[in-house]
C-alpha cells in the first residue's frame, strides 16, 4: 500500500510535469507565432471597463453563443459543467502527488459548497454533448463539419466527466481516515450512482480499485486533452475568451488605410500569412468551426467556392504550414496565400459581397472581412489580378469618377428640372445631399434621387448638392481591393468637403453613408453623416413631413448590409415605412434584420459577373415573393437594381420602390 502511494505519487508527478510542459511548449509556440507575424494593427486596448462587461456577458454569460438557442444552450451546459470540474480535478492531481493536500480543509465551507455545485453541473456536459451528437448524427446541418477532431473532443470530454462522477461516487465510499476531508453530502449526483450501480455492495478492496481506475482514466484523459488542445480546433478553448475580450466594441468599422505613397513598402495588402497581424492570428486561433458564418454567408448559400469558416480554417493551416519560416523571420520563404495548390483562390476571395453576416453572427467575434479585403488589396495592387470585367469599372472611376463612365460634368443632370441648388451657389446650406453615382447617373437611381429632392423640398429643407464636384465615394474601388484608386477618389471628395465644411451630409446610398461616415475621418474629413431613412424619419417626427394616409398596400423591407450590419440601422427604415403607410402593412422576410440576406451587390460585386453557383439576387427575390408583399422597399439603389433584376427573372409582379420614393408618394 505504501509502495503504491509512492509509485502513484511518482507517476503523477512525471505525468503532470510532462503533460503541462508539453502543453506550455505548444502554447508558447502558438504565442510566439502570433508575435512573429509582421502585419500592423491599429488595435488599441481601450475602454477596458466595457470590455470586462463584454467578457462577463459574452464569455461567462454565453449570451453571444446562445443567439442560436438550442446549440447555444448545449454549449452553455458544456461550458459551465466542464469549467466546474476543473478545480477539483486540479486538486486531485496534486493529491495524487501528495495525498496530504486537502483543499477542503483550507476552505472548509466554501470547498464543500463548490463540490456540491460542481457535482450537479458536471452531468450537464453530457446533456450538452448528447445534443451535440444528435445534431451531428440526426440533424446534420451542412455547415457543420463531421471530423475526427470534433469526435475526439466529444469523447475526451465525456470520459473526463464520467470518470469525475465515478471518482466522486467511490470517494463517498472510501473509509474516512483521520485528516481526510469529509465528503459526506457533497456529491448529490454522484451519490446517486452509488445506489444505481450498487457500488456500496462492493468489498472495500474493490471500492479502492474502482476509485483508482476512475482516477487514472480521468487523469490520463485530462492530460491527453491538455496536450491535444493547442493543435486542434479546440484551441478555441484558450483563444476564444481573449478574442472576445479584444473584440471591436462598435459594429461600425473602416477598412485599414494602406499607406500607398510609401515607396519603401515592398508589398501592399495581405499576400502571405507572415503579413497577418497578431489580432488576425488570434482570430484564427479562436475559430472552432461552428459553421454559423457559413450558414449565413450569401456566397456559401448560393454554391460559390467561399465559405467564411473554411477560409478561416485555410488561413490557419497556411499560417501553421509556414510557422518555421515566420518564427525565423524569413518572410522570403513564406509562399503567397493565393498560389497554385492553395485552397484560397481568386474565386474564393472575389465571391465575397462584404455583407458581414459572418462577422455579425460569429460567437467569438472573428473578423473574416479583414482577411478577404486585405487579400483583395494584395491581388489588385501587387498582382493586378481581379475579375477582368471590373477593370473597366476601375478605368471609369479613374477617368470620370463614376463606375459606368458617364461624363463627370453631367453629374447634376438628374436634377435639371427640379431646381436643386449646387453647393457653389448655396455654400451655407443646412444639408449637403451627397447623391452618389447611382442617384446621379443610373436611370433607376435618378428617379430615386428625384424623389428625394422632392421630399426635401416639401419638408422645406435648405439643401444643396455638389454636382460635378462630387466623385464616387470610393466604396466600390476600396472593397474591390483597389486602395490606390479608392484613395484617389476619397482625396478628391475630402478636398471638396473641407472647402464647404458642411453642417450635415445626407446620403442617398448606404455605401456612400458608410464610407463618408466611417472611413473619411481617416482622410481628414469628419462631418455628421446621416442616411436618408434616419433623416426623413426625423423630419416626419418634427412634423415637417405629413403623410397623406394613402394606403400603399403590403410592403416588405430588404435590409441593406451597409445600413444594417455595417452601421446597426434597422429600426429607422421600418419606423419610417410604418408611419408613411399607417393603413397598410409591413411584412418581414424570413432572413431579416441582423440576419438579412445580401442582394449580391456589395464589395464591388455589383460590377462583376456572377457566374458561379446560383445568383444571390434570385435567391433573395424568391424570399421576397414568399412574404406575399406587393411592394419591396429598399434603402439602397444597388439593392433596388439587384432585386428588380431578380424579381424580373422570377417573373414576379412585385414592385421595387426605394423608401425615398415611398415617402414621396406618401407625402404628395
Amino acid at each position, binding site marked *: 500500500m505504501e509502495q503504491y502511494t509512492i509509485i502513484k505519487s511518482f507517476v503523477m508527478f512525471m505525468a503532470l510535469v510532462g503533460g503541462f510542459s508539453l502543453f506550455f511548449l505548444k502554447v508558447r509556440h502558438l504565442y510566439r507565432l502570433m508575435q512573429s507575424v509582421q502585419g500592423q494593427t491599429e488595435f488599441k486596448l481601450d475602454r477596458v471597463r466595457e470590455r470586462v462587461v463584454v467578457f462577463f456577458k459574452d464569455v461567462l454569460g454565453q449570451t453571444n453563443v446562445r443567439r442560436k438557442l438550442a446549440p447555444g444552450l448545449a454549449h452553455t451546459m458544456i461550458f459551465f459543467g466542464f469549467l466546474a470540474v476543473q478545480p477539483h480535478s486540479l486538486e486531485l492531481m496534486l493529491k495524487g502527488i501528495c495525498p496530504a493536500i486537502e483543499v477542503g480543509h483550507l476552505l472548509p465551507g466554501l470547498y464543500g459548497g463548490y463540490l456540491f455545485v460542481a457535482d450537479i453541473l458536471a452531468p450537464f456536459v453530457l446533456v450538452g454533448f448528447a445534443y451535440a451528437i444528435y445534431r451531428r448524427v440526426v440533424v446534420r446541418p451542412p455547415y457543420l463539419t463531421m471530423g475526427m477532431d470534433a469526435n475526439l473532443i466529444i469523447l475526451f470530454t465525456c470520459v473526463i466527466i464520467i470518470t469525475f462522477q465515478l471518482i466522486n461516487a467511490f470517494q463517498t465510499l472510501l473509509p474516512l481516515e483521520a485528516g481526510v476531508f469529509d465528503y459526506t453530502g457533497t456529491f448529490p449526483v454522484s451519490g446517486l450512482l452509488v445506489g444505481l450501480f450498487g457500488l456500496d455492495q462492493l468489498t472495500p478492496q474493490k471500492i479502492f480499485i474502482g476509485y483508482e481506475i476512475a482516477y487514472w482514466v480521468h487523469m490520463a484523459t485530462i492530460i491527453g486533452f491538455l496536450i491535444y488542445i493547442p493543435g486542434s480546433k479546440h484551441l478555441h478553448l484558450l483563444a476564444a475568451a481573449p478574442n472576445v475580450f479584444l473584440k471591436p466594441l462598435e459594429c461600425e468599422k473602416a477598412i485599414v488605410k494602406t499607406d500607398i505613397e510609401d*515607396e519603401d513598402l515592398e508589398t501592399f495588402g495581405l499576400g502571405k500569412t507572415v503579413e497577418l497581424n497578431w489580432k488576425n492570428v488570434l482570430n484564427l486561433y479562436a475559430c472552432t468551426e461552428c459553421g454559423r458564418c457559413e450558414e449565413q454567408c450569401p456566397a456559401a448559400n448560393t454554391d460559390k467556392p467561399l465559405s467564411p469558416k473554411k477560409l478561416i480554417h485555410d488561413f490557419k493551416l497556411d499560417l501553421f504550414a509556414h510557422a518555421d519560416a515566420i518564427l525565423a523571420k524569413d518572410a522570403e520563404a513564406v509562399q503567397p496565400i493565393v498560389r497554385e495548390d492553395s485552397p484560397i483562390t481568386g474565386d474564393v476571395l472575389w465571391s465575397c459581397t462584404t455583407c458581414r453576416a459572418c462577422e455579425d453572427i460569429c460567437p467569438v467575434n472573428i473578423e473574416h472581412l479583414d482577411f478577404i479585403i486585405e487579400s483583395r488589396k494584395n491581388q489588385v495592387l501587387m498582382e493586378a489580378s481581379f475579375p477582368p470585367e471590373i477593370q473597366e469599372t476601375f478605368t471609369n472611376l479613374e477617368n470620370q469618377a463614376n463606375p459606368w463612365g458617364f461624363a*463627370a460634368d453631367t453629374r447634376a443632370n438628374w436634377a435639371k428640372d427640379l431646381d436643386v441648388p449646387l453647393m457653389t451657389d448655396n455654400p451655407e446650406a443646412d444639408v449637403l445631399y451627397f447623391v452618389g453615382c447611382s442617384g446621379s447617373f443610373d436611370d433607376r437611381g435618378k428617379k430615386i434621387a428625384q424623389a428625394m429632392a422632392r421630399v426635401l423640398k416639401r419638408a422645406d429643407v435648405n439643401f444643396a448638392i455638389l454636382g460635378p464636384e462630387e466623385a464616387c465615394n470610393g466604396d466600390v474601388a476600396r472593397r474591390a481591393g483597389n486602395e490606390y484608386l479608392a484613395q484617389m477618389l476619397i482625396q478628391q471628395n475630402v478636398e471638396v468637403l473641407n472647402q464647404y465644411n458642411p453642417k450635415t451630409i445626407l446620403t442617398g446610398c448606404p455605401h456612400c453613408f458608410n464610407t463618408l461616415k466611417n472611413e473619411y475621418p481617416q482622410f481628414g474629413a469628419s462631418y455628421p453623416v446621416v442616411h436618408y431613412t434616419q433623416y426623413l424619419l426625423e423630419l416626419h417626427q418634427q412634423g415637417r413631413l405629413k403623410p397623406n394616409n394613402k394606403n400603399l398596400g403590403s410592403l416588405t423591407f430588404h435590409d441593406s448590409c451597409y445600413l444594417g450590419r455595417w452601421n446597426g440601422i434597422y429600426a429607422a427604415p421600418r419606423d419610417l415605412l410604418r408611419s408613411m403607410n399607417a393603413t397598410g402593412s409591413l411584412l418581414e422576410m424570413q432572413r431579416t434584420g441582423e440576419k438579412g440576406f445580401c442582394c449580391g451587390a456589395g464589395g464591388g460585386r455589383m460590377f462583376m459577373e456572377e457566374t458561379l453557383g446560383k445568383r444571390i439576387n434570385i435567391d433573395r427575390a424568391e424570399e421576397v415573393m414568399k412574404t406575399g408583399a406587393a411592394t419591396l422597399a429598399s434603402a439602397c439603389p444597388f439593392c433596388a437594381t439587384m432585386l428588380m433584376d431578380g424579381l424580373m427573372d422570377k417573373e414576379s409582379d412585385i414592385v421595387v420602390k426605394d423608401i425615398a420614393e415611398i415617402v414621396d408618394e406618401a407625402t404628395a
Partner: protein
Amino acid sequence: MCVKHVPDTAATIRIGTDDCIDENITFIMNPYDENAVEEAVRLKKQTIDADVIAVTLGKGTAEATLRSAMAMGADRAILVKSKSSHDSISTARALCAAIQRDGDPDIVFTGKESVDNEGFQTMFHLAACLDVPVVSNAVKFAMTDTTIRVTCEMEAGDLEHIEMETPCVIGAGKDLNQPSYPKLPDILKARKKPLTEIELSDLGIATPASRVEMIKIESIKEERYPEIIDGTADEIADTIVHVLREKAKVLDG
C-alpha cells in the same frame, strides 16, 4: 513607342475659345497606344536586351500619359513640348526627330489611330520620315531575331499576314492584346523613371510643303426628332420602309 495624351471620349467635350476644345476635362492615354505600350513591354520581357521608350508630342500635361506608359513598363520617356496642336505630318516629323536624336529604334509601336483627331496618318508619315516599312491595325505580332510576322486586320474579318524586317513601324489594333492594369509598385516606380523634355523648336523641323490647316472646330449638334409610328403591324412596317427610303435614304429603289 509613340503615345498620345487625348481627351477621354466619355467626357463632355466643349469648344472653348480660339477654336480649341475646353481642356478642363479628363485626359487619358490614347486607348490604341495602350495596346502599343503593352506589346512593346511584352516584347521586352521576351528579349532580354531591350529598352522601351515612350515618346509623345504635346503640352506639359502630357507627362501624365508618359507616366502611365512607364507604369505599364516603359523604361523611360521623351516629351516633345509644344503648346499648339499639329497635323499628322508635323507630328510625325517631330516624333521622328526626337526618336532619331535618341537613337535608332528597331521597332516603333504606335496606336493605329488616336481617338481625338482620328486622322489614321501619323504612323505612315513617321515610317516615311524614318524610311522604314509600316503596317496598321496589327492584331497579332511575333518576332524571331529580326524577322517579324504580323497579322493586320484590313477590314472587319479581312486579315493579312505580313512578314517584315526591323526596323519598322507597327500600328497596334485593339485586338493585339489586353493592356494590363498597372500594379501599384510600378505606378510608384514610374514617378521616378527618367523623362526627357525637348522643346519642339529645338528639334529644328522643316515646315512641310503641304499641311492640314484647321479652319474651324464645331461640335456635333445632337438633334433628334423622334416620331411615334402608330397603326397596325403592316402599316407600321410600311411607314418604317417609307422613312428608311425617303427620309434616311438608306434603302435603294
